[in-house]
C-alpha cells in the first residue's frame, strides 16, 4: 500500500502548492519541501526495513519476485494493470529522486519569484512522474508515466527558463526537448505493442505485465526491431550521441531546479529503462547490439568531452560533460559484466550528485553575476566566499578524482568492461584525460585569471551552504564506502548480468547475419 502513496504524494502536494499560491510565496515552497521530505523519508524507511537481497529475476524458474508489490486491474480489455513493484535498483533511484527533489525545491527558494505555486506544481509533478517510471512494471503504465513527466518539464523550461543568445530562446529549447522525447517515446509504444501482440499471438492473452512478457518467444528479427524501439527511446533520454540535440539547449535554458532534475534524475530514467526493460526483455537482441551500443557510448564520451572544452556558457559546458559521463554508463550497461553493472548504479548516483552540485553552483553564480557566459567571469576566487571551494570539489568529483563516488563508479565500469572489450576501455580512458582538461578550463576561466571588479559579491547564506555541504558529504561518503549502495542493488544487477551473459555467450555471428539478411 506504500507504493501508490509514494507516487501520489508528489501529485497531491503539487496541487496543494498551486492552491496555496493565494497565501503568498512562502506557503507553496514549504508545502513542496515537506512533500519531498516525506517522499525521501518513506524511501529511507523502506530502505532500512526491507530486504533487497532477493533475486528478482530468476532465469531458471522464470518467475519474478519483488521486495514489495502492488497490483490492481486497470484496463482489463488489454490486460493492463496498475502494477507497481520495488526492488533494490528502483529503491535507490527513488531515494535519489526524493533527495534531488528536496534539493531542487531548496535551490529555487530565491531563484523563482513569480508564479511560485504553479512552478512547484510542475516541479512536483515531474518528480511524481519520475517515481512512477521507477516503480511501474506494467509496460503500459511505464509508458504512461514516461510520457506524462515531459509535460511539466516542458512548462518548467518554457515558463521559468532563461533565454540565451539570439535564436536560443527557452521556448525553442522546451519544444525541442518535448518533440525529441515524445516522438521517440512513440517508437517505444510501438515496440511495446509489438511485444504485447507477439505475446498475444503465442498465448492468446493480452498482457502488458513485465513478468508475462519476459519470456515471450520472438523471432530474432522481430526481437531486434522491438529492441531498437526501446533503445531509441532510451537513447534520446540518456542521451546517446546522434540523438542528443535537445540536451544542451534544455539544460542551458532551464531554471536551476529544472537542470538539477534533468541531469540528476531524468537522464537516469533512461539508464534505468535499459537495465529494467531493454536488456531483460530482449537479451539476445541486446547482446547482438552490444558492440554498437558500446561504440555509441565511446563516441559520446569523446564527443561530449571535446565539445565541453569549447563552450562559453557554463551550463552548456556541464550539459556536454553529462553526455560524456552517460557514454560511460552506456558502455557499462552493455558490457554484461557484474562489476561494470554495479559501477553503473554507483556512477548514476554519483553523477546525479556532482551534476546537481555543479548546476546549483552555476545557478548561484548566475544569481550574483546575472550571466552564465564564462567570458564575462574570471578572478572570482576570493570574491564569492566559500562558493569557489565547493566548485573545485564538484569539478574534481566530475572529472573522477579518487575519493569521490564518481571515481569509484567509473573505475568499476572500466575495470569490469576491460576483460570484455579492452580496446573500448582504452579509448574510453582518453575521456578521463579530456575530463581533466574541461574541468580545469572551467575552474580557470571562472575563478582564476584577472578579476573583473573589486566588489565583493555575496557569499553563501546558510541555506546554500547546508545544501552544498550535504551533497559534498554524500559524494565523499559513497566514494569512500559505496558498499551499502552496492548491497542493495546487488541482487538486481546480478540477475540482469546473468540473463545478459547467457545471451552474450550464445550470440555469435550466426544471429548477426540473420538480422543483416
Amino acid at each position, binding site marked *: 500500500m506504500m507504493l501508490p502513496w509514494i507516487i501520489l504524494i508528489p501529485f497531491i502536494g503539487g496541487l496543494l502548492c498551486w492552491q496555496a499560491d493565494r497565501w503568498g510565496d512562502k506557503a507553496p515552497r514549504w508545502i513542496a519541501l515537506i512533500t519531498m521530505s516525506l517522499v525521501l523519508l518513506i524511501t529511507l524507511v523502506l530502505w532500512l526495513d526491507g530486504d533487497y537481497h532477493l533475486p528478482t529475476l530468476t532465469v531458471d524458474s522464470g518467475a519474478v519476485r519483488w521486495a514489495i508489490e502492488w497490483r490492481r486491474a*486497470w*484496463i*482489463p*480489455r*488489454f490486460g493492463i494493470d496498475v502494477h507497481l513493484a520495488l526492488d533494490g535498483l528502483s529503491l535507490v533511484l527513488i531515494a535519489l529522486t526524493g533527495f534531488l527533489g528536496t534539493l531542487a525545491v531548496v535551490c529555487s527558494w530565491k531563484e523563482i519569484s513569480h*508564479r511560485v505555486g504553479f512552478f512547484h506544481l510542475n516541479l512536483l509533478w515531474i518528480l511524481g512522474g519520475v517515481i512512477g517510471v521507477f516503480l511501474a512494471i506494467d509496460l503500459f503504465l511505464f*509508458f*504512461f*508515466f514516461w*510520457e*506524462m513527466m*515531459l*509535460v511539466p518539464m*516542458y*512548462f518548467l523550461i*518554457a*515558463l521559468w527558463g532563461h533565454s540565451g543568445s539570439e535564436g536560443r530562446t527557452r*521556448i525553442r529549447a*522546451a*519544444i525541442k526537448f*518535448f*518533440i525529441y522525447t*515524445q*516522438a521517440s517515446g*512513440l*517508437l517505444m*509504444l*510501438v515496440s511495446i*505493442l*509489438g511485444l504485447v*501482440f507477439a505475446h498475444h499471438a503465442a498465448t492468446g492473452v493480452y498482457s502488458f505485465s513485465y513478468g508475462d512478457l519476459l519470456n515471450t518467444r520472438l523471432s530474432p528479427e522481430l526481437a531486434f526491431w522491438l529492441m531498437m524501439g526501446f533503445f531509441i527511446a532510451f537513447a534520446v533520454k540518456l542521451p546517446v550521441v546522434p540523438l542528443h540535440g535537445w540536451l544542451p539547449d534544455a539544460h542551458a535554458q532551464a531554471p536551476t531546479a529544472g537542470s538539477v532534475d534533468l541531469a540528476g534524475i531524468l537522464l537516469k530514467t533512461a539508464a534505468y529503462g535499459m537495465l529494467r526493460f531493454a536488456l531483460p526483455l530482449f537479451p539476445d537482441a541486446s547482446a547482438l547490439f552490444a558492440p554498437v551500443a558500446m561504440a555509441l557510448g565511446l563516441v559520446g564520451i569523446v564527443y561530449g568531452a571535446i565539445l565541453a572544452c569549447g563552450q562559453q556558457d557554463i551550463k552548456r559546458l556541464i550539459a556536454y560533460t553529462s553526455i560524456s559521463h552517460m557514454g560511460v554508463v552506456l558502455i557499462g550497461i552493455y558490457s554484461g559484466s557484474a562489476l561494470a553493472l554495479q559501477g553503473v548504479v554507483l556512477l548514476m548516483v554519483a553523477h546525479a550528485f556532482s551534476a546537481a552540485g555543479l548546476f546549483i553552483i552555476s545557478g548561484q553564480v548566475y544569481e550574483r553575476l546575472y550571466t552564465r557566459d564564462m567570458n564575462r567571469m574570471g578572478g572570482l576566487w576570493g570574491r564569492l566566499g566559500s562558493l569557489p571551494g565547493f566548485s573545485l570539489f564538484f569539478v574534481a568529483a566530475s572529472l573522477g578524482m579518487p575519493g569521490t563516488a564518481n571515481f569509484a563508479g567509473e573505475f568499476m565500469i572500466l575495470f569490469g568492461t576491460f576483460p570484455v572489450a579492452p580496446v573500448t576501455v582504452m579509448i574510453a580512458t582518453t575521456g578521463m584525460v579530456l575530463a581533466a582538461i574541461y574541468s580545469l578550463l572551467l575552474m580557470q576561466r571562472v575563478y582564476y585569471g584577472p578579476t573583473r571588479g573589486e566588489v565583493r559579491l555575496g557569499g553563501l547564506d546558510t541555506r546554500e551552504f547546508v545544501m552544498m555541504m550535504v551533497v559534498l558529504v554524500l559524494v565523499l561518503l559513497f566514494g569512500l564506502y559505496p558498499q551499502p549502495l552496492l548491497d542493495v542493488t546487488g541482487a538486481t544487477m546480478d540477475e540482469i548480468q546473468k540473463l545478459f551473459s547467457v545471451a552474450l555467450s550464445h550470440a555469435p555471428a550466426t544471429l548477426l547475419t540473420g538480422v543483416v539478411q
Partner: protein
Amino acid sequence: MTLTTTHLMALTPVILLFATAVTVMLGIAWRRQHAVIATVSVLGLNLALLSMALVWQMRGIESPLLVFDGLTVFASILILVATLACATLAHAFLEGYPGPREEFYLLMLCAAAGGIVLVASRHLASLFFGLELLSMPLYGMLAYTFRDRLSLEAGIKYLLLSAGATAFLLFGMALLYAESGRLDLAGLSLALGDSSGAWALAGAGLIIVGLGFKLSLAPFHLWTPDVYEGAPGPAVTFLASASKVAVFVVLWRLVMVAPVFDAAILHNVLAGLAMVTILVGNLLALVQTNLKRLLGYSSVAHFGYLLVALVINDGLSSETAGVYLLTYLITTLGAFGVVTLLSSPYSGQDASALHHYRGLFWRRPYLAAVLTVSLLSLAGIPFTAGFIGKFYIIAQGVEASRWWLVGAIILGSAIGLYYYLRVMVALYLVEPGMRRRDATNDWGLRAGGLVVLGLALLVIVLGIYPSPMIEWVKLVVSGS
C-alpha cells in the same frame, strides 16, 4: 413493407427532434424570447437523448430506408450530446448578437435530425437525404452572423464546394445503380458481390470523394481553414463535432457493409488518403497563427488517423474507430467550447487569433486549464482521453503490421506536438499591452462554462480510467 408501431418507436429520437423544431418555429413566430427558445431546444434534445434508451431496447429493427443497430445508437448519442453542447454554447454566444437569435436553434435541431437519419441509413436514398438535411442548415449556421464578411464567406464557400461534392456523390450513386440496379446497401453488396467491375469501383470512389469532402480529407480539405476561421463559434463547434461524426459513421458503415468499398484498389486509395491527410493536416497546421484555423487543420489530421481504423478492417477496427471518435468528440467540444466562450457574448469576429490567448492562464486560470487539457488530448499525451484513442490506433496498426501507416501516425504526432505546444505556451506567457478579449466574469457559473468544465474533467477521467468507455463502446458498437 408497411410502417409499424415498432418502427415509429424506433424513430422516436428523430420525431422528437422534428417536433422540437416545429415548436421552436411556432414559438419564434409567436414571440421572440431567446432564453425560452434555447430552453425548449435543450429540453427537446435531452428528451431525444433519453429516448435513445428506447431505441437501444429494440435495436436490430430495420425499415427499408433506416436501420437501428448498435452503430446507429452510438453515433446518435454522440450527435445528440454534441448538439446539446453546441446549443448551450450558442446561448451564451448569441446573447450579444444584435440580429435575430432564435433561428439558430431551429437550424441546429434540423441538422441534428439529419445527422441521425444519415447514421441510420441503409439505403443510398436515405443516405443522400440525411446528408443534405445535415448540410443545408449548416450553410445557414455558418453564415449566421452574415454582417461579418468572413462568416458570410464561410457559409458561401461551404455551400458551393458542398454542392460540388454532392454532385460527385450523386454521380457515384448513379454509377452504382447502373451497375447493380439496386440502391439499398444490402442489395448493392449482394448484386455487386466480390467481382467489382470498373463502374462499380468508380462509383464507390466518387462516393468516397463526396464524403471525403465533408470529412475534409486531404486533398479535399481546402475549404476547412477558411470555414473554420470565418464561421461563428457555435456553428464551427457543430461542424467539427456532430457533422463530422455523422459523416464518418456513414463512411464506416459503407466500408463495413458493402464489399465494393473493401476492394483492394479502394483499400489502397483509402490508405493513401489516410497518410496524405495525416501529413498535410499536420504540416499545414504548423504555420497557422489563428487558433480556429489551426484546429481546422488539426481536425483534418485527426480524420486521417481515424481513416486508419477503417483501412485496417479487422477485429479491433470498430472498437478503435468508436473509441477514437468518442475521445475526439469530447476533446474537440472542449477546445471549441473555450474559443466560443472567449468570444461570447457576440461582438464581431471571434477571438481566435493566437495573441488573444496570450497570458490567458493568469486571467482565467480554469478556462486556460480546459484549453490546455483539450490540446494535450488532441496531441495524445497520457492522462488525457486522446492518448487512449491514439493508443488504439497505433495498437491496431501494429497488430496488422501496417508499418507505413504506423510511421505516418508517429510522424504526424511528432509534427502535431509542435503547434499544440505553441498554442499551449502562449496561454501562460504574459505580454503587457495586448488587446484582450475575455470571457464574462461569471463564465464558470453559466451553462456554457459548466459544459466546458465538465468536458475537460471527462477528458481527464477517461484518460486515467478508460475502462468504462471501452466497455461501453464494445457493448454498443461491436455488440459484445
